[in-house]
C-alpha cells in the first residue's frame, strides 16, 4: 500500500472564456519525483500555482494530504534588496528556531546550491543564475513535504544546473519529500524525475515513468515535441 499523495479531480482553469487548464484526474504519489514538461503556454505554471494555492481554480478539486507542508518557487521569484543570508533567512523566521539553528539552516541551504561564498552579497547585485540559486535555497531551508518548483534552473549554466539538480535529489532523499518540477528541458526531466507529465494546451497529453515516455512517446504531439531534443 503506497502512501496517500495528491489527488486532482475535474480541474478546470479559465481566463474569461478561454480554458487554459483541463485535467480530468491526476494522482501524484508521495515521495515520487514528477516533471511537468510541455511547450510555452501549455499550462505548467498554472497547474503549479493551483497546487501551491496561489491561484484559485475555476472548477474541480485539489486534495493535498493533511499535514503536508508545501513550498513553492515561482517561475519569476523575487530577490530582495538585502543580503543573500537575509534573503534565505526570511523563510525560517517564523519556524520557531533559535538564532543559531536558523543560521545553520540558512547556511545548509546555501551550501547545497553552492552560494555560501556569496552569503553577504546583496540580493540585487547577483547575476540571474546566482539569484535563482538564492531563491531555491530559500525554499530548501524550509524542509517541506511537497516541493513545487517552476523552472528552477532556467537561468543557470549547464554546470550549475547539474550541481543544483544533484543537491535537489539529495534533499528529496533526506527529507522524504515529493517533487513537482516544471521544465522545458526533457534532459532535466530525465535527470531529476521518475515520473513525467506532458502538458499540451492545458491537457495531459501523456504521463508515465520518465524513461518510458521520453524513449517511447505514444502520442504524435509528444513525439513531435521530443523530436527537437538532441538534434
Amino acid at each position: 500500500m503506497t502512501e496517500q499523495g495528491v489527488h486532482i479531480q475535474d480541474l478546470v482553469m479559465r481566463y474569461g472564456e478561454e480554458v487554459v487548464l483541463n485535467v480530468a484526474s491526476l494522482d501524484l504519489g508521495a515521495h515520487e519525483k514528477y516533471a511537468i514538461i510541455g511547450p510555452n503556454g501549455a499550462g505548467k505554471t498554472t497547474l503549479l500555482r493551483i497546487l501551491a494555492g496561489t491561484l484559485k481554480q475555476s472548477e474541480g478539486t485539489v486534495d493535498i494530504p493533511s499535514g503536508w507542508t508545501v513550498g513553492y518557487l515561482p517561475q519569476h521569484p523575487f530577490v530582495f534588496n538585502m543580503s543573500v543570508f537575509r534573503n534565505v533567512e526570511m523563510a525560517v523566521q517564523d519556524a520557531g528556531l533559535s538564532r543559531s539553528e536558523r543560521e545553520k539552516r540558512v547556511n545548509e541551504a546555501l551550501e547545497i546550491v553552492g552560494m555560501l561564498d556569496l552569503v553577504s552579497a546583496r540580493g540585487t547585485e547577483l547575476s540571474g543564475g546566482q539569484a535563482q540559486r538564492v531563491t531555491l535555497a530559500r525554499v530548501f531551508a524550509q524542509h517541506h513535504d511537497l516541493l513545487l518548483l517552476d523552472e528552477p534552473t532556467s537561468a543557470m549554466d549547464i554546470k550549475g544546473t547539474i550541481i543544483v539538480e544533484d543537491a535537489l535529489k539529495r534533499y528529496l532523499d533526506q527529507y522524504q519529500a515529493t517533487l513537482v518540477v516544471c521544465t522545458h528541458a526533457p534532459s532535466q526531466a530525465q535527470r531529476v524525475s521518475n515520473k513525467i507529465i506532458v502538458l499540451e494546451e492545458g491537457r495531459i497529453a501523456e504521463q508515465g515513468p520518465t524513461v518510458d515516455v521520453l524513449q517511447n512517446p505514444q502520442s504524435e504531439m509528444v513525439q513531435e515535441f521530443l523530436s527537437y531534443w538532441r538534434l
Partner: protein
Amino acid sequence: MQELFEALTTVFTPGSELSQITLVTLKMAFFSTTISMLIGVPLGVLIGYSDFRGKRIVLRILNTLMGLPPVLAGLIVFFILSRSGPLGSFRLLYTVQAMVTAQVILITPIVTGLAATAVTQVVPKLHETAQGIGLSRGRELLYLLNECRSQLFSFIFVAFGRSIGEVGAVMLVGGNVQYKTRVMTTAIMLETNKGNFEMAVALGVVLLLISFVINSIALLFDERGFTARRRRSTIPRHKDEKAVLQEGKKDTA
C-alpha cells in the same frame, strides 16, 4: 549684482523682511510636506498592496487629483475657511494654517499616487514569492516597505519641492500678508508687479538655492541607498563537484 548680493546677505540677517519671508516659506513647506507624507505614504502603500473592487477607479481618481490645478485647491479651501464657510468660525483664512491646508490637498494625492505606483510595480512578484514560502501578510507588508524604502523616502523631496514652488493656492488663501503669510513665490509676484526686478530676481535666486540644497540632500540619500558595494564574484563551489559533474555528463551527452 549689488542688489543680489545685498538680498543674499539679508536672508541671513535675523529680523530682516527677507529672512522672515524665507522662514515662513520653510515653515509652510515643512508642515505641508510632513502632513502629506503621513497621509499619502500609508494610503498609497495600502492602495498599491491590496487588491479590491474598484481599485482601477480609485487609481484614476488619484491621477486626476494629482493634476488638480493649485488655484482650484485654493478656491476650495477659501470657501471652507471663509466667514460663511463651514469652518469659518475658526478664522483661519489668511493664515499659514490655511496655506498648509491647501497644499496638503494638492500634495497628498501626488504622494499617494507615487507611493501606489512604486508599490504596485513590486507587489505581484513579491506576493507570489512570499506566498510560496508561507510568509504572513504582516511580514510580507514589512518586506514590501523595506524594498521600496528609498523610493518612498524620496517623495519627501518631491513634496517639499512642490510646496515651496507653489503660488496660486497660497496667494488665494494666504493673501500674501506682509510679515505673516508672505512666502517667496508670492513675494516674487509682488516685487515684479511693483517693478522691483532686482529684488524679485534675488528672491528667485534664494528660492533656487533652497531647491538646490534640498535636491542635493535627496541625491545623497538616493546614492547611499543604491550604491552597489563592490564584491568579489566567486564561482559557486560545491563539495563533491567533480564527481557530480562527471555523473551529470552521462545524462546530458
